[in-house]
């Protein structure tokens, strides 16, 4: 009996708005999720997937002599080509599918493994669980894909040759462009992460909705101006440090200012997470899900 009384004195307080408790709980969820999902064998495929653009840039910029010569001699063209590779391959494909894999598995993977109930049986608000899971996915995706972006940029700048690359990076607009690309990658993880977290919560088979979102994002350049703005890629595209041509079929829309794009993406993410928090309250035991 004495042990029970002793235990109750160190039990975490569960008050109405206990931010320090919630932060502790989010950190605990982060530790579990990062270890489980991002240090396991299953994560190896994801790392290989994220390395594809870096390997491609290495082949194009370093191994291929024509490629490196083009980068050195036609730098503006090389920058535009990289902008297209970044948007087409890194952003629309790698980050998109990487986030789909990471975030949809946060809940769906645990439902399949029948281990979600361990969280549900903790003295934990479901909203805090959503936040903890989301941040663990965000941490993994941001680390992974900013490294992909940085690695790809490294080979681009390396191929430009010394000292032109260092001058461009530190005395020219290079550093600003690098930071912008990294920032876009982080915003993409933020936005796509929230979308896929919700898809994983709402759909038993999330592949079809994920493909629909993929189609919507790819066809975005064809959409009328109003619909064009209901997408993540539209805001990411307008942030690109190198203006990119979307092709002759693209609908022309006035560029959205970064002062609108960035807050819009953050507000959108917050709204989607709020929706996830409402949804998670109604999620039943995994066997019934």
């Amino acid at each position, binding site marked *: *009996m004495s*042990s*029970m009384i002793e*235990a*109750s004195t*160190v*039990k*975490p307080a*569960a008050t109405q708005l206990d931010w320090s*408790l919630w932060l*502790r*709980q989010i*950190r*605990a*969820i982060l*530790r*579990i999720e990062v*270890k*489980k999902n991002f*240090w*396991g064998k299953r994560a190896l495929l994801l790392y290989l997937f994220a390395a594809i653009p870096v390997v491609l840039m290495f082949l194009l910029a370093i191994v291929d002599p024509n490629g490196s010569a083009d980068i050195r001699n036609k730098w503006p063209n090389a920058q535009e080509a990289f902008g297209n590779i970044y948007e087409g391959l890194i952003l629309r494909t790698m980050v998109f599918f990487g986030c789909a894999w990471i975030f949809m598995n946060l809940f769906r993977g*645990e439902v399949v*493994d*029948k*281990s979600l*109930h*361990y*969280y*549900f*049986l*903790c*003295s*934990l*608000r*479901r909203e805090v669980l959503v936040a903890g899971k989301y941040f663990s996915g965000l941490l993994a995706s941001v680390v992974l894909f900013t490294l992909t972006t940085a690695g790809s940029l490294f080979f681009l700048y390396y191929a430009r040759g010394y000292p032109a690359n260092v001058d461009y990076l530190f005395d020219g607009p290079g550093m600003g462009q690098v930071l912008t690309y990294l920032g876009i990658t982080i915003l993409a993880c933020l936005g796509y992460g929230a979308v896929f977290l919700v898809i994983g919560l709402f759909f038993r088979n999330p592949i079809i909705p994920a493909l629909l979102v993929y189609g919507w994002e790819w066809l975005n350049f064809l959409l009328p101006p109003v619909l064009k703005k209901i997408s993540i890629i539209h805001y990411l595209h307008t942030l690109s440090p190198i203006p990119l041509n979307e092709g002759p079929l693209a609908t022309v829309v006035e560029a959205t200012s970064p002062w609108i794009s960035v807050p819009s993406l953050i507000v959108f993410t917050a709204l989607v997470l709020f929706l996830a928090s409402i949804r998670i*309250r*109604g999620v*039943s*035991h*995994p*066997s*019934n899900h």
Partner: protein
Amino acid sequence: MHSNIEHRTSQIIFGDVSKFYGEILGVNRVSLAIAPGITSLVGPNGSGKTTLMNLMTGLIQPTRGRISILGISPDNPQELFSKVGYCGQFDSFPKGMTGYEFVKSFLRVHGYSNKVADEKTWRAIERVDLIEAAHRKVAGYSKGMRQRIRLAQSIAHDPVVMILDEPLNGLDPMARAETIRLFRQLAKEGLHLIVSSHILHEVNVMSDRVVLINNGYILAEGGVTGVREEMEEHPMQIMIRCDLPQDLAARIFASDSVVEAQLHRDKQGLFIRTRNAEAFYLLLNRIVVESGMNIEAVAPVDDDLNAVYQYLIGSNGGGQA
């Protein structure tokens, strides 16, 4: 008024609770008030025991009615699980964790600091006697060890209500006896223990009360004492998988408690019927030590619905309460 509130906050209350899965009945019109001590939910597989437990823990929501756990609604998990521990039947774990990490990680999710979580983890692991295996991966545990580590995880945060779904499944006789002793100790400390079982012998040896359930309906509830004498007369059937079943059969007939022994068709096991399971388990331990026989598994197979009805309420279970 004051005593009413006190009553409500010291009991687990089901008020006319029903749960339907689409058109399928889970439980229907359940009204119960469960006081501290060990309460066993008894019924055959699929009778609604797990549904009742999932309702108590908010893992599923009732279609109708209200549930209160010591005055807390199950849809308030933050408050509920500071007082409730649930050891479910799912034999699944988060991937890649050791036993220690499994217990400690979820204590951290409760909000405990690293130091307190560490202390509580070791205390819980010690209670289920898994200290030596604590740093091994759960994936490499035997079924009994996995059951015990789940039990450790559910008691680690010192709940005052323990909900245990078939907690003795997969345990060997020694671990079974130890676990029952632990339950009794916890009940003595003033905890509520709600245990589901379809094994009469387990119900007999550990419960203060039984709730008999079938097809989603509560058929009977009350103290075990009244039915204990009848239950002691009920021979319990146990299946033993071992390498020398004939040798084992010859040896166990030395005990008065064994009334029948039958070889398994594959000659790798034995079914026995005993009137005194505790004495039989002790005998079995002695035989294993003396003969060096290799026992692969020991499991009660007494899941006969008619036996439950005959020995608890004396009917064939055709009607509904």
